[in-house]
């Protein structure tokens, strides 16, 4: 038998209605028992809200709305939930933004919608740009940019240019860490002439402006020069921090030495800006440690182990 939707003829049977062509309906259409719409090779279903933003499809359960798909500022929003618990996404131009309000003057919401939860997490995240983290007030906290720089608040670099610890002043900036080797070089009267080595090795660790050195040296010949003994080759320049003296304070220790000539105690002290250390000696238990060790104080096979800490301006 035939029926009508609007002015269109509809074939009706005991199991439903079949519209073989176009059908225009002016007014509401209620369909019970499910609605199937199919087409071949072109758009299957067009749902058109003519002029205004708002809900286009209302999703319901038990007669009550649980979500909707609609238009906002001529783009698509998908919202679930009800007042005070709206959650969704807004498919804005070149971005997906969180939605937390119903279709109205603004469906987007700031700082209310999570991505995943502690129990139900997304897996991998693939990005080609930056990751920017702001706090609830909108202040920049962390930026991992596409150039692999990790930046703290105010654009300060956490990677590449240091990290601020305990504060944000220049005195709180840890800007360098490095490990490596250096080659100890013994000089007598600031000359290396005739000095040869059985072995010499040095290791350094730099943390901020603090440089810590370890080293070991064994000579096979001290040469023929006379005068004060120096140690050069340190990996970083020595900062000039103490006034009224060129001898910088620090922690320099000759941990062990052999093949000396009557030394009671041997120490090292660093010279500012002079790229080296001086050996100082005590010849007796009661002597001051204020005399430079000289070539005559060591044998040709002089050997020593040292550990030193000083401040650099590098």
């Amino acid at each position, binding site marked *: 038998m035939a029926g009508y939707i609007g002015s269109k003829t509809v074939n009706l049977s005991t199991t439903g209605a079949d519209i073989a062509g176009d059908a225009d309906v002016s007014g509401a259409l209620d369909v019970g028992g499910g609605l199937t719409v199919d087409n071949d090779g072109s758009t299957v279903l067009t749902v058109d809200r003519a002029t205004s933003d708002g809900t286009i499809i209302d999703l319901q359960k038990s007669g009550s709305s649980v979500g909707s798909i609609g238009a906002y500022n001529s783009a698509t929003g998908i919202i679930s939930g009800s007042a005070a618990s709206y959650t969704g996404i807004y498919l804005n131009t070149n971005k997906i933004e969180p939605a937390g309000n119903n279709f109205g003057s603004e469906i987007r919401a700031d700082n209310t919608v999570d991505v995943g939860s502690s129990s139900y997490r997304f897996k991998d995240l693939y990005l080609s740009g930056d990751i920017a983290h702001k706090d609830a007030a909108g202040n920049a906290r962390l930026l991992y940019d596409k150039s692999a720089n990790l930046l703290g608040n105010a654009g300060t670099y956490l990677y590449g240019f240091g990290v601020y610890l305990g504060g944000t002043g220049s005195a709180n900036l840890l800007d360098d860490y490095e490990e*490596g080797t250096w080659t100890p070089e013994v000089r007598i009267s600031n000359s290396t002439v005739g000095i040869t080595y059985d072995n010499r090795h040095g290791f350094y660790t730099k943390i901020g402006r603090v440089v810590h050195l370890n080293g070991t040296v064994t000579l096979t010949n001290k040469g023929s020069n006379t005068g004060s003994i120096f140690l050069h080759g340190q*990996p970083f320049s020595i900062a000039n921090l103490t006034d009224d*003296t060129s001898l910088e304070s620090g922690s320099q220790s000759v941990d062990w030495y052999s093949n000396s000539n009557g030394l009671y105690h041997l120490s090292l002290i660093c010279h500012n800006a002079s790229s080296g250390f001086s050996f100082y000696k005590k010849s007796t238990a009661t002597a001051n440690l204020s005399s430079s060790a000289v070539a005559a104080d060591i044998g040709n096979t002089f050997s020593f182990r040292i550990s030193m800490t000083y401040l650099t301006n*590098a």
Partner: protein
Amino acid sequence: MALEKIISQDRIEIVGDYKHIQVRTKTAVIEDGVELSSAYSRHVVAPDADITGESTEVQAICNAVHTQAVKDAYAAHLASQEV
């Protein structure tokens, strides 16, 4: 799968009043263009240093910044050092 050891001076810095030149030498092990490991070694070149053993690049920097005025000032500084 080609392994190569590449030694380079990857950092050359001029520091301090007397233009000390800090040189970092990097030794890297590379496999098919990918760096597998690396290690650093350093030394400092003072204005009065013998630079004949330095690289061409470091020598050029020394010649540029270790002017006679810098060398004289550094020599005066060393001469004035007192405990």
